[in-house]
């Protein structure tokens, strides 16, 4: 797939937050990222995620990267 095409990465932050009984604001506090930025990630509008952000989110939610993101089938 050429890199210019839209991506098919799906973020499951909503599900993970619901299962952990955590709010987006609480996660934002724990991770040190703004609610706006987490909202961008949650709504699949992000184009890239810093490894540091990813590490912090996975630590806060106690999950693996694969639980947070999947690739939608074509």
């Amino acid at each position, binding site marked *: 797939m050429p890199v210019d095409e839209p991506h098919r990465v799906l973020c499951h932050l909503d599900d993970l937050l619901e299962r952990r009984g955590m709010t987006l604001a609480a996660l934002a506090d724990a991770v040190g990222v703004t609610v706006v930025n987490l909202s961008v990630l949650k709504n699949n509008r992000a*184009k890239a995620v810093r490894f540091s952000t990813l590490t912090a989110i996975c630590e806060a939610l106690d999950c693996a990267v694969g639980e947070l993101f999947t690739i939608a089938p074509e």
Partner: protein
Amino acid sequence: MKGKQSKDLLEFDRTDRVGLRILLWATVGLAFGAQVLEPLSAWVRGRPIEVPFFSEVTVPALDKVGTGYGVADYLVTIDQPQALDHLLAVLPGIFLVALAVAGAVVVQRVMKAVSNGAPFAAAQVGRLRLLAALLAFGSVVHAFLALSCNGAILGRADLGGLSPALSFSFPWLPMVLGVVIAMIAEAFKAGARLQDDVEGLV
């Protein structure tokens, strides 16, 4: 201890922008005066018009003393120009002023986007490319237009048996400037893409 932050002297601040705007429009105004108003005033007052003429002419005084001379650019004065001659004389000037106005507007828009904190907005690439085209192609079109108009005026004039000839020199400087600005537009294109990436970075 933190030292006092020194002001970046090369920073383009509000004063510079106002200064550049004044300079741009003063240049456009001067171009309008020299290239359009002056020929129009000559037309209204019935003054003769001067046209550059590239030719070999005979100078009896130099022939007499045996001094050699060759072809050169001369100014032919059309003493009683017709309305068409005046129109042909003013036409390249109108085109040049139109180019200058378009260029000034584009430069102002580029400057405004920079001052608004959006130097790499997608529209900037288009603006810079337009500016490059105005310089690179507009200058050549203007040179050809001036050559054609002068040729038409000379073609209608009585040159005492001399065949009308014109010399054409490519406007290299604006052409090179245009290419440089087109190159800068490419850098802005890369900048616009980077900004787009950064905006979606979490």
